[in-house]
């Protein structure tokens, strides 16, 4: 307890800087894989690349026709993939800022998008109740796989080496194991907003719309813990684990950021980060650094 207490001391809660530039709500903010840069996207139909440690705005990517809902950098930082309300998935070249390819197939807004480990496949989740996988290596813009077992809008998708994990408003977290050819459905009973994986890959964090963050054991589907206290009822909001898997971080609709201790689920700390809904949280892969974005149009860097 003392160790976690001391760890709690180092939680990022002081605002280092604010990254401003987005006009309108920022819907997602993401560190790149090494944590040196970050990407944000928002309702102003742009993607922005920042250096959060200096506060420099590096580049703006414009091509989306409507709001951009999610962005994910490739592991080699050479490519980006973004999605939004224009039903398309844009595959960008980071350096040139050009769109390499547009993936079509979704019949409605695309909520979440991710690269796989080898950056060969882009998996997206959409409002059209499907998860679609696109091949980056072929010229085709059509999906190579469409998963349409969801009953409702798919809010979030996550990939491991062998699995596609997606959370849906129908209250399920579905794990598609490619190696086994198996679909595992964990019904949580409440709409799932966001899912994120623990860094060891054993646990699954699901942000549900009943203002509860649930921690599941990925292998057994067991509910390990529930984290409560924040407000999450109508917005798609991110949650994540700290890089040492000791705390759960989540935003609240009132602009607060919550830290829960992983095992016993008490609120370790909470502070007001934004004036409005905290839409996205990204935790630095190594350091005690955190990014939050909000509907108020600001991105804040916390150390």
């Amino acid at each position: 307890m003392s160790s976690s207490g001391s760890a709690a001391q180092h939680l990022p809660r002081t605002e280092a800087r604010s990254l401003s530039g987005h006009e309108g709500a920022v819907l997602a903010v993401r560190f790149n894989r090494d944590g040196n840069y970050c990407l944000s996207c928002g309702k102003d139909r742009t993607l922005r690349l920042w250096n959060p440690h200096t506060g420099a705005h590096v580049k703006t990517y414009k091509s989306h026709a409507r709001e951009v809902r999610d962005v994910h950098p490739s592991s080699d930082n050479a490519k980006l993939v973004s999605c939004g309300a224009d039903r398309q998935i844009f595959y960008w070249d980071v350096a040139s800022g050009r769109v390499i390819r547009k993936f079509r197939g979704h019949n409605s807004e695309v909520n979440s998008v991710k690269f796989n480990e080898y950056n060969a496949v882009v998996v997206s989740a959409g409002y059209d109740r499907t998860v679609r996988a696109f091949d980056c290596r072929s010229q085709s813009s059509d999906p190579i796989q469409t998963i349409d077992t969801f009953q409702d809008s798919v809010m979030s998708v996550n990939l491991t080496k062998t699995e596609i994990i997606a959370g849906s408003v129908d209250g399920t977290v579905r794990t598609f194991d490619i190696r086994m050819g198996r679909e595992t459905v964990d019904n949580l009973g409440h709409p799932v907003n966001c899912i994120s994986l623990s860094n060891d890959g054993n646990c699954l964090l699901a942000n549900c719309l009943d203002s509860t963050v649930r921690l599941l054991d990925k292998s057994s589907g067991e509910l390990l813990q529930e984290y409560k206290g924040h407000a999450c009822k109508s917005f798609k909001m991110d949650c994540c684990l700290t890089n040492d898997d000791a705390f759960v971080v989540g935003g609240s609709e009132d602009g607060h950021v919550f830290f829960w201790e992983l095992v016993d689920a008490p609120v370790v700390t909470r502070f007001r980060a934004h004036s409005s809904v905290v839409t996205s949280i990204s935790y630095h892969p190594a350091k005690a650094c955190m990014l939050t974005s909000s509907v108020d149009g600001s991105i804040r860097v916390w150390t």
Partner: protein
Amino acid sequence: MGADSDDDDLVVYGTPIEREEDTSTRKRRAVAEAGQLRALPAWKQEVRDEEGRRRFHGAFTGGFSAGFYNTVGSKEGWTPQTFTSSRKNRAELKKQSIYSFLDEEDIKDMGGNALETSQQYDTFGFTAAEYARKQASKEQKERPSAIPGPIPDELVVPTSNSIGVALLMKMGWRQGRSIRDSHADSLYESRRNARKAFLALSGSRNDKDQEQSSDKPSLDQAVAGSLEEMHVSGNTPVYVLHPKQDLHGLGYDPFKHAPEFRDRKTLQKSRDRDHKRNDVSVRGNLLVPNSGNYAPGFGIGALEELDAEDEDIYASGFAYEQTEVDIEPSKTASDSNYKLDDRKRGFYLSFKIASNSEYKLERFLPPEIPDDFDAQHKFPTPVQSAAKFSDIAPPEALPPEDTSLTLLIEGCAAMVARCGKHIEDFYKEKSKTNPQFMFLSEGDGCKYYMRKLWEHQQKYAGQQRPDSPKSKTSEKLTADNRGRILGERPLDRSTKLHSPLSAKEAVQLQSNLVDTFVKPISLDGLPESEKPFSNDPAKQARFEQFLKDKYKGGLRAANAAPISSMSEADRARERLDFEAAAEAIEKGKGKKVHDPSSVFSLPGMNEQRFVAATQLESSVVPKDEKPIYPRRNQFEWRPSPILCKRFDIIDPFMGKPMHVQRPRSKIENLIFMTESHKGTKDDVESSIRSSQHASMERITETESQGTVNDPDIEPNSMQRPVDLYKAIFSDDSDDDADEILNNQPVDPVKTSEGANMALNRLVAEDFLESLGKELGLEVPTERPNVSRAETLSSAGTSVSSQNDKITPALMEVKESRSSLGMVQVGNANNEASLASAEKLDLKFEKLVNRTEENRSRHMHRQSQSPRSDSSSERHRSRKRRSHHHIRDGTPESDSVSDHHRNRRRKSRSRHRKGRSRTPDTDSSSDTKHQRKRKEKRARRTYTPDTDSSDHEHKERYKSSSRRSSDKDKNRNHSRRHKHRRKDHQDYL
């Protein structure tokens, strides 16, 4: 070097002898090809010799080729021996061997000079013996025969030492001694030293001997019988061969049951040996059974005389005598004793009482029983408590006023009597929470209960006793353990405490339940009250089967053989009924059995095998009504192969397609896929393509969907064979089919077409049948043995019978058309520019086309209905169309318009089949089409009336094509609706 210079000067004649490399490469190639050749079929394989030359040819290419090009010669030809004068040089007798006539291969086959293992060095193998035998046969002549008589002596050979043994022998080793350096023998060394010391002490008297022994230790060693020698020889075990010398079968022990005779045997043997050693003449005596070598395995009758042939030709040839060593000197000593006895008493009188019997029966003492052992096993909750009760009968008591309570008491008492005290304890525990069981401890009915209990105990005492010892030995099983083993499902917790079922029934149910758990009996003995379907015995039987299945546990049978008479829905309904009834019965139990755990304790009633599960109450978690989250389900999921590849994972299904429920037969699928289905698919596709015109499309779509949902689909499917026929044969038949559908009995032409249709149908059916046979499928034969005339009439009726169903669909079409009209107007107002207007025109035509398609479809179905409204319908539609089809200058007759529609339909259906034609080829195809039509006309009995109309058609088409040549865009649209539609897609 000299050779080199020689080479330069050498003039070469003839073909040089093949180089070694060349042949070797050829060989290599031959070897390489050999592998490939083997894969080839037999008739493609070629026989080549090892140098890769082809030695066998086909009859026309040389046939069998042997030797040098089918000669016995050689490349050099046949050369006679050089003549030598025999006068001077007498031809010496040339010794010819077989090798001078054999070539390399043959020699190799003979194994003549091939490298082989030498028999000599076959250290332990059989060849050594073989070799020895040969040697022996050679020596046979020189030495006197060991065995007299007519025995082929060469068969009996002395043992030969293998090379290893021979070498060892040469090195000074002797049989029976350990193999080691004699000088390194520490024991020997130490002894020698000791002796030296002793001798030194004792004086120099034996100096000489000492010198000798020290100088020649090997010699010393060689002296057999010395003390050391004996000692050393112990190291190597001497394997004594026990030769088979009797006439019994292999492994047969004649003394198995008479061990006394074994001694006799050994005695005899030793005597024989004595005889052999002492008296050679005895060995030749054939009457001495063991002296000679007789074939052991072959039957020689007891009275048969021993002949020469019976001599043992299978004997291994080892001379046993040489290696035979007595291992039991004591026995030989006793043997000699017996021998003496024998001499005295005669041959077979030497029975002797064994001093110590070898056959001692080993007996074990029974295990000691500890003093405190109690032979009677006591159960924690003894059944024998009954005995306690049985002694003193409790006083007679009056039953309580409440009859249900009385029954409950009775049932409870019966159970306690059967199962033992623990049930009572259990109920007592229950009674703390439930006032119903108060009678167990006190309150009214307590005395009555005691009395009843005693009575039941008396009753069950007799039947319990025999069981009890068994139950003592058998291990205890808890009810839930057993349930787990059997795969039983825990019963649902019943929430209702009181149910309309009486307590009596509850008790009965309990006992029934017990039976269900203990052994799966049939529920025939179900009391009347539990037969909810007693009025329907069949249903009751099914219900009982259902109950049985339900309580059988384990894997339920997938589905009891479905009753053919019942429909799926009926069965489902009945199953629901059964479940409800079963639940009601269970709830009835709930009155008595307030906890499922008590139900589980029931299996212990008949036998004491089962103890009540103690942890059961904790394990039974009260279930909430709402499902528990998170809930996990697993399904099969097929990742696409490319996804697997991209994720660098092996496809778990290896590209195998998803298991889909196979349609019962392909033909069926073909036949019953309705046309409207295909149509909608088409529509949907096109709607996707032209999504920008969704609004307009949607109208038509809904329209077409409206037709899909119409009830007239069913009659539609009845005519599928023709559809299939159409699908298979050329599109020309479309016309016929449509005309067929259109057939009007009033018109003689139509009747003829009706006949045609029927014919077509017959042909189609025949075709289908044959196709089905080819595919190995069962073809649904609708009218197996109907004559053609009958088919004709039935075809007519089947068409007319659909008329009624078509009207509602028609109404719908009408409605949708009116809405379409609105769209038309709106569009006309909006679009202004010429090009867009044209486009609109196209679009609109398409729409009209569509609606007309739908309508005409209905109309065709409606066929010849003479209703005024429908005819006016038609008229109106025609009018509108003519308005848009400006080029159709003249109004056409009804039949012509019909034809026109047919043509449209045809083109549509052609489009459906995806047979798209490019505009360039269109004209040619058009002419082809005409030609085809002409052909058909020749074939078929067309009236001139239709012919002319047809002609008109052609004319119109021509004109339209002329017009269309003006504008490139318009070209296609005026030709075929198919192309019009296609162009639409291109524009959009």
